[in-house]
């Protein structure tokens, strides 16, 4: 298949703005476009795509929007054929998106339709078709090469800095959706999680609690610390599985992958699946009563004590510090 070096990037929007999760993929897209000697196209699908197009255009790329009945929800069955068709029309060499729940769901289906090889959860670019990505819960960094003409890639959000707008705005074009066939799939409902706190994947500071918190109500003290620090709250799988806290708080291999400036792990042992989700944090603090807990092997600062003892003092000390900073 003839390809033109173009990078086609699926970006997501909330209201009239791009989702912050999509911005690291734009950074990836710019570099991939430079390596392939082509341009960057940002693709917006679904209701509000044209309203968010102006924001997308500030990133200096060409913007394509697709709207229409049947595209209200990101169904892989309806979205993937549109992405694949536009990729062919544009002669795209690379088709990519951030590895959000939508990106992870839709992109492999796009790869199937384009008969392309795919690199998942890319953390680095080593060449036009060569990428770095973690395997085995982050115990290995692999360099993989995609041999097909078109390369499909999902991008790990925490591995690329968010893109900033550039001076010149790109052109915006509406593209027809074409025939839509959901193949027997349908959206039924969404119960949206709403929280006044920043999203886990965007937060500069994260406080996470584990099984050692014992009861859901004990997370109140972590929430107090979190809000004092203006951060987001996370949890281990043991805490979410036990129903102490909502499951979308889970950090790890199968939860959110985060890389904040400061990660405070409280009563979390540090299983590899948990570490896989937070090892990239700049500074890690562990508070655990067991001096042998594996979390101390990755923690920059470890405090061996119970949360019952540490947290009230920690909150008081942070308050003192904040007061002094005013």
């Amino acid at each position, binding site marked *: 298949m003839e390809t033109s070096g173009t990078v086609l990037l699926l970006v997501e929007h909330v209201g009239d703005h791009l989702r912050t999760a999509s911005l690291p993929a734009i950074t990836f897209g710019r570099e991939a476009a430079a390596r392939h000697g082509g341009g960057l196209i940002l693709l917006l699908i679904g209701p509000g795509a044209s309203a968010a197009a102006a924001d997308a255009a500030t990133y200096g790329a060409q913007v394509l929007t697709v709207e229409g009945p049947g595209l209200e929800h990101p169904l892989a069955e309806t979205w993937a054929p549109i992405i694949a068709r536009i990729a062919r029309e544009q002669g795209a060499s690379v088709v990519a998106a951030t590895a959000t729940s939508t990106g992870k769901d839709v992109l492999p289906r796009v790869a199937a339709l384009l008969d392309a090889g795919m690199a998942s959860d890319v953390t680095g670019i080593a060449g036009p078709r060569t990428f770095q990505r973690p395997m085995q819960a982050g115990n290995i960094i692999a360099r993989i090469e995609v041999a097909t003409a078109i390369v499909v890639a999902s991008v790990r959000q925490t591995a690329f800095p968010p893109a900033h707008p550039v001076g010149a705005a790109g052109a915006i074009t509406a593209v027809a959706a074409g025939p839509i066939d959901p193949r027997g*799939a349908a959206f039924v409902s969404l119960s949206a999680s709403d929280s006044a706190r920043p999203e886990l994947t965007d937060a500069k500071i994260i406080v996470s609690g584990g099984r050692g918190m014992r009861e859901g109500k004990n997370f109140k003290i972590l929430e107090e610390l979190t809000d004092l620090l203006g951060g987001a709250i996370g949890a281990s799988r043991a805490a979410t599985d036990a129903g102490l806290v909502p499951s979308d708080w889970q950090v790890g291999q199968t939860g959110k992958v985060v890389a904040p400036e400061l990660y405070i792990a409280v009563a979390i042992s540090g299983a590899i699946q948990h570490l896989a989700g937070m090892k990239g944090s700049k500074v890690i603090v562990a508070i655990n009563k067991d001096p042998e807990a594996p979390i101390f092997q990755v923690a920059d600062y470890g405090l061996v004590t119970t949360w019952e003892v540490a947290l009230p003092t*920690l909150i008081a000390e942070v308050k003192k510090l904040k007061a002094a900073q005013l």
Partner: protein
Amino acid sequence: MKILVTLKRVPDPEQKVKWKGNALDLSGTNWVPNQFDEYAVETALRLTENASAGNARDGEVVVATIGPKDVSQQLRSALAMGADRAILVDGSDDNLDAELVARAVVKLVEQEKPDLVLMGKLAADSEDNQVGQLVAGYLNWPQATFAAGIAVVDDGKALHVIREVDSGVEIKRVALPAVVTVDLRIIAPQAIKNGKTAATHAYADGPRYASLKGIMAAKKKPIAETTLAALVPGSALRVKTVAIEAPPSRKAGVKVGSVEELVQKLHNEAKVL
């Protein structure tokens, strides 16, 4: 309902990774079933039994793997849990990519004609998170990835799949036949509603253990064998691992003696407060 479940063997995630120069040293590796696939087997069993009537079987569960002959061990474990039969597609497990696996699964689907293909959402070693979506894409079937719960609806013609997505919890309807990939929460006590087992029934948390009776029965259950070359002739890898390395290690941290010292260090030394 007839269900095809895929199962991959992976190095035990709890075992420390051993290096031999620039490659992994897999000697002495303890191979285990990929956990998400074990959850998929459990899901398939819950979908095809009436737990309110002594776990009476109601459907068929076929477990398939692509890997070396040794994987029959992991297949036997799935049979001991209660799966009805197994298929071993002989192929080395270090010379596969997601596309090749998916093409082989598609061939098995054409042979077996299941109503549902159940897979793990991700293999704990390669962590590709691709095969289920690829299979659905090649077959042009509906897909529901990252399932945290499943309810059989429309007299067994469709599923409502609970999916944990970034913006919340979604319910997606897929008409059968379909591909579903399962996430952790699928093995929660009440995650599966098959329309036969009483809706109030709560399973024990997690995949079931094989009973002694199950282990004995598994010895007699068939494992059919075929080869990757027979299913997907002349295929070349599209995604190759060209090198691997250890991740940069974090420098050893310090233990602090008190909360006051911690806050002082975070403020003055790490400058994050």
